[in-house]
């Protein structure tokens, strides 16, 4: 219990609660359960992407192509839906996930087999995937009246008082909790990031583990592609432009160490929720729109400063001081 209270996650949770209460003083009704549920729903996509990014960052890599991957899969599913409205939503979701996995695998293979630094690989694929959207769509939008009713209804459908979008996010969080804490692959992510050389001696294939992290992050980005386009009921070339930075920011706020090897599922979820709450609070808190960007940036830096790691307690042997 004491360990929990002093943990980074507990501090972040307290900060999140404080933030919600602060907004409540400026706009009463913000902390109402119904509104918090809608903030969670709005943040669902960011949470899922941040979880995927967490795995990648844990292995000392970074994936900047998630938002482009999301935009491309979103556009492809919307175009299929517009051309063939008869294709069931389940099939479209499968296509989205498969496409996302494929793009993630492409990133992973370049990092694994060609040993190119991940930031270079994903900066490249960020542009490539975004570029392919222009190629497949010819720059044209897919508008809400061209999408089938079922396509738009799925993430909005209510099930036990929460929209399906929220349930999907909850399922992904649960899946990640098991993957990271209870499976050999999950521990391998920490080992590879904590100390790659030591990981090799314990029999872990560093390249393969990184590849798996990129594949999972890609698959989630694909799933989110469908959810995003369906939620906002419009697909255009600039969907989620710049969102990769929000994802990385959510991870950093959540205490995922950019140096790799440290982080938790709870941290990533809380980090995303913190950012999502700010985004939802600013429009209602009566703050001048001219200040909003500066405030949102300042909140990130403050959160990270509070959350600073004093003792980098790695999972496996620390590397010798340079």
């Amino acid at each position, binding site marked *: 219990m004491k360990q929990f209270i002093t943990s980074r996650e507990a501090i972040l949770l307290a900060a999140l609660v404080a933030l919600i209460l602060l907004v409540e003083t400026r*706009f009463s*009704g913000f902390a109402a359960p119904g*509104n918090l549920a*809608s903030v969670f729903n*709005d943040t669902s996509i960011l949470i899922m992407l941040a979880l995927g990014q967490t795995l990648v960052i844990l292995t000392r890599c970074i994936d900047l192509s998630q938002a482009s991957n999301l935009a491309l899969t979103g556009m492809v599913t919307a175009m299929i839906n517009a051309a063939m409205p008869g294709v069931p939503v389940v099939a479209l979701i499968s296509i989205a996930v498969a496409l996302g996995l494929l793009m993630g695998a492409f990133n992973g293979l370049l990092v694994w087999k060609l040993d190119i630094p991940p930031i270079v690989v994903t900066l490249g694929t960020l542009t490539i995937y*975004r570029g392919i*959207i*222009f190629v497949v*769509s010819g*720059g*044209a*939008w897919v*508008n*809400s*009246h061209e999408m089938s009713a079922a396509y738009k209804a799925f993430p*909005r459908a209510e099930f036990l008082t929460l929209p399906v979008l929220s349930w999907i996010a909850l399922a992904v969080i649960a899946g990640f909790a098991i993957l990271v804490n209870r499976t050999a692959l999950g521990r391998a992510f920490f080992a590879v990031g904590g100390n790659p050389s030591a990981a090799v001696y314990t029999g872990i294939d560093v390249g393969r583990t990184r590849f798996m992290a990129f594949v999972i992050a890609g698959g989630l980005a694909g799933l989110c592609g469908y959810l*995003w386009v369906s939620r*906002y*009921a*419009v697909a*255009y*070339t*600039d*969907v*989620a*432009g710049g*969102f990769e930075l929000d994802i990385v920011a959510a991870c950093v706020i959540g205490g995922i160490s950019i140096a790799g090897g440290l982080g938790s599922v709870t941290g990533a979820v809380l980090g995303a929720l913190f950012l999502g709450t700010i*985004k*939802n609070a*600013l*429009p*209602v808190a*009566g703050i001048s*729109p*001219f200040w909003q960007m500066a405030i949102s940036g300042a909140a990130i830096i403050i959160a990270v400063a509070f959350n600073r790691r004093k003792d980098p307690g790695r999972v496996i042997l620390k590397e010798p001081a340079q």
Partner: protein
Amino acid sequence: MSITRRIAIATGVAAALMGTTAMAQDNVRIALVAKSLGNGFFEAAARGAEEAAEELGNAEIIYTGPTSTTAEGQIEVINSLVAQRVDAIAISANDPDAVVPALQKAMQRGITVISWDSGVAPEGREMHLAPSSDELIGQTIIKLAADKLPDGGKVAVLSATSTSTNQNTWIAEMEKVMDQYPDIELVATVYGDDLADKSYRETQGLLQSYPDLDAIIAPTSVGIVAAAQAVQDAGKTGEVNVTGLGLPSEMAGAIESGASQSFAIWNPVDLGYATAMLAYNLATDEAKAEPGAEIGMGRMGTATLDDDNQAAMSEPFTYDASNIDEFKSVF
């Protein structure tokens, strides 16, 4: 491969490339620079410009722009157009001042520079073609909201970025005529940055902050679509009317659902057509941009320049359930 062979091949390729550009030099090459590629409005304008080029016979349209709505991206595009030695550049600017130095460089090289849709500061262009007069647009957007609120009510504005030249002017013009509608109260102006998710969230914020809001005016094509979707998702269809400026193809769904009762836009195809005609006439020295000049715009009539070398094309046109089906496949 030996060095000499490589050089020989490279020279050959370069010669072939130069050959193709040399052949195209006979045409008047007009670059149409969009705020960003992949926006339905600019795609439609490009189609109009192509139509003008066909009519003119010896004009060629180069439709280009950055992939995101930034002034930096446009400066790069302008520099590459200057390097390609086009005859005219017609730009819808992301920032009125930031692109001025690059455009001045183009004018020094003898390239005709005009702005259209979103203007450039006077020192950076020969003339500006506004799609409509700013006064008319400002009056139209408030009238669209007020006409559906005979008993008065609260309206809010969802704009693009806080630095968008045209949105800010229209909102200012709208505020000037607000006293004609004493029962209409403007409660807030928020900025969705022309991003679907931010516009959606700002709309949600408006609906929460002002539960008795009656209308949202979004003078931006991305914002109006996102606002209509957010109103629909909040179950406020019929209570909150989303109106403003949008494209029929993108707004058809919102009109159908009732989230939007009507909206307005000038015809972007006509705007692209008129822009290409003006650029052609100025580039071929058939007309000169000076205050009071009347320059032909083909089937769109003539543009009369004011003291700032600005001209307006026509009034915005209102779309609602009665005519949306006719126009949604056009642009």
